[in-house]
């Protein structure tokens, strides 16, 4: 059944760790909203430690794709495996997958009624059973990593957009995920704040985190991505290493897309 998807994965970039259980494996995944097909027979394989940038025009299904990986969106057909666990709509499997994945949203989605520190300690304490002291240490560790330990006692509303997004990254990391999903993390930011968030993401990439990023930041893609996945109308149209994708896009659609976003 998976022969075709294997062939496609091998046809893309060669992954040294391919023999391991992949971080994410999607086979013939469909997602519909009424008559609209958001994902149309999507196959995708992501190796552990790999950094993927998903791009494509708006409405192409890229956000839906990564939101299906932690079951924030329910796929209608096809198979999704995350670290070998099948996302089959069973509660325990969904829980297992969500424990392995962290997500960063376009609109941050920090809890506005809690301080930065409380945002970071809530899940470790309630879902992982850490004591308050342990959770605080953990939170401060990651807040230091995203370079805002001094803002721990503030509320999200008192921070700039860039700071809020870095808190959101720290909050996700506090659950020690193996895979990080980024859904347009810099799209809601003022231009001067994009860089600090991308720097944080680069640092994470350097440490070997498996990452899937939906982003229009092509500079980031060029520098960090192992592979670019280009989507259009719910389909993965092409995937290639950044170098190749930017220089020799195979599909007409990718060419016009690149023409439009790279000035």
């Amino acid at each position, binding site marked *: 059944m998976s022969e075709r998807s294997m062939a496609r994965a091998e046809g893309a970039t060669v992954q040294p760790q391919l023999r391991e259980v992949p971080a994410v494996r999607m086979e013939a995944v469909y997602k519909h909203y009424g008559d609209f097909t958001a994902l149309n027979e999507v196959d995708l394989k992501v190796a552990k430690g790999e950094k993927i940038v998903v791009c494509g025009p708006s409405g192409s299904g890229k956000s839906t794709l990564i939101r299906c990986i932690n079951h924030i969106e329910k796929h209608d057909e096809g198979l999704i495996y995350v670290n070998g666990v099948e996302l089959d709509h069973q509660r325990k499997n969904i829980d297992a997958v969500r424990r392995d994945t962290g*997500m960063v949203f376009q609109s941050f989605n*920090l*809890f*506005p009624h*809690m301080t930065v520190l409380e945002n970071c300690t809530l899940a470790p304490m309630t879902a992982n059973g850490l004591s308050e002291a342990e959770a605080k240490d953990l939170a401060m560790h990651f807040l230091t990593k995203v370079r805002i330990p001094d803002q721990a006692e503030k509320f999200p509303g008192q921070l700039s*957009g860039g700071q809020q997004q870095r808190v959101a990254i720290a909050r996700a990391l506090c659950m020690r995920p193996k895979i990080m999903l980024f859904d347009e993390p810099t799209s809601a930011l003022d231009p001067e704040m994009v860089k600090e968030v991308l720097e944080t993401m680069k640092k994470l990439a350097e440490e070997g985190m498996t990452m899937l990023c939906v982003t229009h930041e092509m500079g980031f893609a060029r520098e960090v991505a192992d592979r670019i996945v280009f989507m259009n109308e719910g389909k993965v149209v092409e995937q290639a290493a950044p170098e190749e994708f930017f220089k020799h896009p195979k599909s007409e659609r990718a060419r016009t897309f690149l023409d439009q976003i790279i000035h």
Partner: protein
Amino acid sequence: MSHFSPTAAVSYFFNYFLMKGVLVTIGLTVAAVVGGLILGMGIALLRMSSNPVLAGAARFYIWFFRGTPLLIQLVVIYSGLPQLGIKFSVITCALVGLILNEAAYLAEIVRSGFMAVSAGQREAAWALSLSPWVTFRRVTLPQAFRLMIPPLGNSINSLLKATSLASVISVEELMRRSDMLMQEHFQILEVYAAATAYYLILTSVWDAVQRRLEKHFGRSSAAKTRRVAASAPVAQASVEARA
């Protein structure tokens, strides 16, 4: 007929008989708020459920109790139900009527509060592996509650005054006891001046409580949040809730 006597009004204000009526009014209000909130919360949950039968039943309930006068509801419960062999004490009748009626209003307030919490908040909670209970208790409820306070305050203010309707079924609350004093002494203005003063005091105290609640639950919000437009969903939502 004599002139208005301020001293008589003051003496009615300190009349022990009337004061006890005030306590009944407070008791009715508090009990109806608590009962109404519990029932209203349940109805709001049904109303938001994806099951069309449950949602429909909740809708019908809200439609019925908001669409008929509280006065009729009270009279039917007090005088009508005994015809079917269902009989309660006077105070129970008043409480049942007030709670059933208030729950319909509160259900809509609770629902609007929860609907105004952005979907992104729940998604973030899921992504963080929070359990449904923790998500409700720590993420959605506090935010929804903050949005509910202004309309809730309004509704409780109305309820406090609506308890006076229980006088019609002979509950001896503030209004009924004022009537009784008035019929005894015929100092209409003096008695009702005292009663009016009590209602104003009660509603003012509630106003102060409400302001405190708003301040407490708004500690992270509005004034401080203004700096960042990205957290606007909350502010926007509170406008929707008020509308």
